[in-house]
């Protein structure tokens, strides 16, 4: 027979004024299994805890029920109390008679007392079935993985490496640097993006604790916090990185021209190329889809000319598997496809471009060497129209969210146009101007007041070509009239959207994403860089539209979380996880399909049946991965799976006790 102790807390008068605590304690005496029952003013205070400890030893209690506030508040407190009294902490159950009773039924003491009594009876019925549970520890692999080598990934890797931990960066493109490398100047200081990014790129590349794995993608993620097993596909670069000196001869002599992705296709690159001059590693890659050798089998100029004999057409993709203790996901963003806005004619009119095109147009190493020229005829535009919120804040055609960075980068673009083309006119169509950030509002004010950009509050309804000009027709809602502007170039402040394959990666690693495929943080306020999957953290725009300062801040925060994890030798795991009763399990695998953490696998056990040894398929729960949701327990028809601390028996006992 179990010996349960019941402790009713008054919480000062919080509970006692609505519930007759003494009576609840008296009633509890009669419940099966209760050996001791009492009430006290503050159970969570030192004397209250002492009271529990004393009762445990005096009355040889082996189970404890505390009826007080929400277990979300004080369950850890009372578990520790049990531990100090020599009891397993999981032999505690709590009845929530404050938030769920006293506070919501202040005017009906009789029925509140009855309810409190019944809540205690449920807890007693459950605790009788509680089993002692042990937190186990698992070793931690002391290496972190950062997925994505943009500014967020670089910052996270640097911070982790500087704390003394090993870290790998996996980057899909041939070079690290990401979107920031494409950007010309940064707001609100207008310092050159490359000037502040490239030193960081060099630093991370030269850091003894960092390994760059470029032109590679994560293909499979298994395991769990502390012990992720990640398969990485290193795409065939066709250039031996160890031999290549980066002299650039191959690129120079390559006969094939391909529109450059980095230059937003406004300039050509070669089929063997480095994406941009400051690329790291600054060694070329062969774009096999366009390379003449790979298409026709003829050419091979690069191989013939390479003084280091680094060009290797026979290279193949390689799959490598590495172990990591923690993962930072910093995969960045894509741009919204503006062509859904038929009225703007993006894709039809050459001079309607996105903000990222503009960044390249204004960049000194870009296709126009920094002179702003419009793409159609290379003329310097005099009238430039900017349209904000293209793809964002538009539930009908685009995304509902605010893309956050566009107000500021449009102000920056407006400033740059006015600075570079003295006799230019700049018009900005906007819905709102949002400038929360240090120095941002001031920057915007300068854009209008000092640089004379004309901000027009309203939407553009149509852009059409007439006589070599783009007629931008819109509404000025402040003046309440329609306006038409003869523009030479139109720049669309295009929304940031999640990466095309964002959902795929999230599913592969096993964490959640929102309706727009941005990654979901564990808590929007209190856990903004964690995911719900332990050991996986978020940095940068993969979690939502973000500018550079925010991305960097989040990256450093994620790095701290990683360091916290990697600085331990072993980590504790919650014992409230699923277990398999192999005797019952039929091995149907239904539990495997419903588990959100890929924590269940089917394995074979050996058994003797009819005198023969057979291999029988059964489910097996990985205690490191299981988070204790219990989905498998319901998927299993024969109840071969059970959830510790919330077992079928416990819940049925609670139901029975409640219905008495």
């Amino acid at each position, binding site marked *: 027979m179990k010996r349960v102790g019941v402790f009713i807390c008054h919480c000062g008068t919080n509970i006692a004024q609505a519930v007759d605590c003494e009576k609840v304690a008296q009633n509890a005496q009669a419940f099966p299994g209760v050996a001791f029952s009492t009430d006290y003013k503050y159970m969570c205070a030192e004397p209250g805890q002492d009271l529990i400890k004393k009762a445990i030893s005096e009355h040889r209690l082996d189970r404890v029920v505390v009826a007080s506030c929400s277990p979300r508040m004080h369950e850890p407190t009372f578990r520790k109390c049990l531990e100090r009294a020599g009891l397993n902490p999981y032999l505690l159950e709590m009845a929530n008679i404050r938030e769920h009773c006293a506070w919501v039924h202040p005017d009906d003491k009789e029925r509140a007392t009855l309810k409190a009594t019944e809540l205690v009876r449920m807890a007693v019925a459950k605790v009788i079935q509680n089993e002692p549970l042990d937190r186990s520890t698992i070793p931690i692999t002391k290496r972190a993985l950062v997925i994505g080598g943009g500014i967020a990934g670089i910052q996270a890797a640097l911070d982790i490496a500087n704390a003394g931990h090993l870290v790998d960066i996996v980057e899909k493109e041939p070079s690290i640097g990401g979107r920031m490398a494409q950007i010309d100047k940064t707001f609100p200081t207008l310092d050159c993006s490359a000037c502040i990014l490239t030193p960081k790129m060099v630093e991370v590349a030269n850091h003894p604790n960092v390994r760059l794995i470029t032109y590679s993608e994560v293909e499979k993620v298994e395991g769990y916090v502390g012990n992720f097993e990640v398969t990485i596909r290193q795409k065939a670069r066709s250039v031996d990185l160890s031999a290549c000196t980066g002299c650039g001869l191959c690129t120079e002599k390559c006969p094939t021209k391909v529109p450059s992705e980095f230059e937003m296709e406004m300039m050509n690159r070669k089929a063997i190329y480095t994406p941009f001059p400051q690329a790291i590693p600054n060694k070329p890659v062969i774009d096999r889809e366009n390379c003449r050798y790979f298409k026709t089998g003829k050419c091979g100029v690069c191989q013939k000319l390479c003084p280091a004999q680094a060009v290797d057409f026979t290279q193949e993709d390689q799959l490598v598997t590495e172990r990591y203790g923690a993962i930072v996901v910093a995969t960045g963003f894509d741009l919204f496809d503006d062509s859904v806005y038929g009225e703007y004619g993006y894709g039809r009119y050459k001079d309607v471009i996105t903000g990222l095109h503009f960044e390249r147009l204004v960049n000194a190493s870009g296709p126009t060497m920094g002179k702003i020229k419009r793409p159609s005829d290379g003329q310097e535009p005099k009238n430039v129209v900017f349209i904000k919120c293209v793809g964002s804040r538009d539930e009908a055609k685009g995304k509902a969210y605010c893309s956050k960075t566009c107000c500021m980068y449009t102000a920056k673009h407006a400033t740059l146009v006015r600075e570079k083309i003295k006799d230019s006119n700049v018009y900005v169509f906007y819905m709102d101007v949002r400038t929360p950030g240090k120095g941002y509002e001031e920057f915007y004010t300068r854009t209008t007041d000092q640089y004379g950009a004309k901000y027009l509050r309203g939407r553009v309804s149509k852009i059409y070509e007439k006589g070599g000009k783009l007629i931008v027709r819109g509404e000025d809602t402040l003046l309440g009239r329609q306006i038409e502007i003869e523009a030479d170039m139109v720049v669309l402040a295009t929304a940031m959207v999640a990466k095309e394959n964002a959902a795929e990666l999230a599913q592969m690693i096993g964490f959640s994403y929102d309706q727009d495929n941005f990654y979901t943080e564990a808590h929007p306020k209190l856990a903004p860089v964690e995911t719900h999957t332990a050991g996986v953290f978020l940095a940068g725009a993969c979690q939502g539209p973000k500018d550079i300062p925010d991305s960097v801040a989040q990256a450093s925060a994620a790095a701290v979380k990683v360091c916290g994890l990697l600085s331990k030798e072993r980590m504790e795991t919650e014992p409230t996880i699923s277990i398999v009763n192999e*005797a*019952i*399990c*039929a*091995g*149907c*695998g*239904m539990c495997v*399909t*419903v588990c959100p953490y890929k924590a269940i696998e*089917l394995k074979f056990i050996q058994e003797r*049946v009819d005198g*023969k040894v*057979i291999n*029988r*398929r059964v489910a097996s729960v990985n205690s490191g991965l299981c988070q204790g949701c219990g989905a498998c327990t319901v*998927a299993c*028809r*024969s*109840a*071969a799976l059970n959830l510790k601390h919330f077992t*079928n*028996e416990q819940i*049925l006992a609670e139901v029975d006790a409640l219905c008495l």
Partner: protein
Amino acid sequence: MNEITNKMRKIAGEILQKGEASVVIGWEKGTFWYLSPPAFIDKVEDVDRLVWDDFCHNNLSKYLVDFKYKEEKVAIFVKGCDSRAFNRLLQDKQIEREKVILIGIPCPGLKDQDQAKTLGKEGDIPKAEKCLECKYPNPLVYDYYLGEKEELDEVAATKEAPNYSDVEAIEAMSPDERYEFWTKQYDRCIRCYACRNVCPACNCRECVFDQTCVGWIGKANNSSENQFFALTRAMHVAGRCIECGECERACPMDIPIMLLNKKIIKDINELFGEYDAGIDVDSKLPLGHFDKSDPEEFM
């Protein structure tokens, strides 16, 4: 049908002779002329016991579970419904495809054995109720096929669009009428579990209803426990039921069990899209996956 019986015996003989399988599961004549229970033939000389007639009701795939850990192959005759059951068992990982030799038989629909008993051999015995609405009379998967290919096309489905009029009739009742209806049905239940034992969707190693220590269900035979049993079983076979109707045929108390199963099938189709269990081996079970755009009624 005699022709098929001959073919059955021939192919069973060949399979056993060549040692391709250690046992052939088929049907044989039972105690009465209107019963054709399962037969397990493991000797060539026994193949003449095999028959194919109007009463080969049993869903033979269910018995494959008993051979799960046997090393030797098993050969089995399958009608349309047996083959759906086979696919289901494959999906539930209870059997391995390569360990089974499937011999398909086109099924024109079987006859009602209770009616047969009353009407006698010469009587005009009607089709079994479960065969009146068969969507898949032909085996969906087989290694050998008894009968001509043309025949396969000829044996058309007797049901084109699903007919839920019986389910709808109950839905049209008031809650109290419905309760009364079902209480009347399940008050008869003697909890013999024949429905479970004959059901190919019930393939647990140990059924919850046999787990006395957890206390899922009481032993008392009363209305409440019987209904717990009925509803729990209905939920457990939800998305798995292949509509072979064996549960209802096996029920000694004539409880309309398929009325529960059909209700769930109807709801699954309406809520989560058309789904026929045991057709596509690669399909996911309706309760084994979800769609973010599933109907939302709980806001």
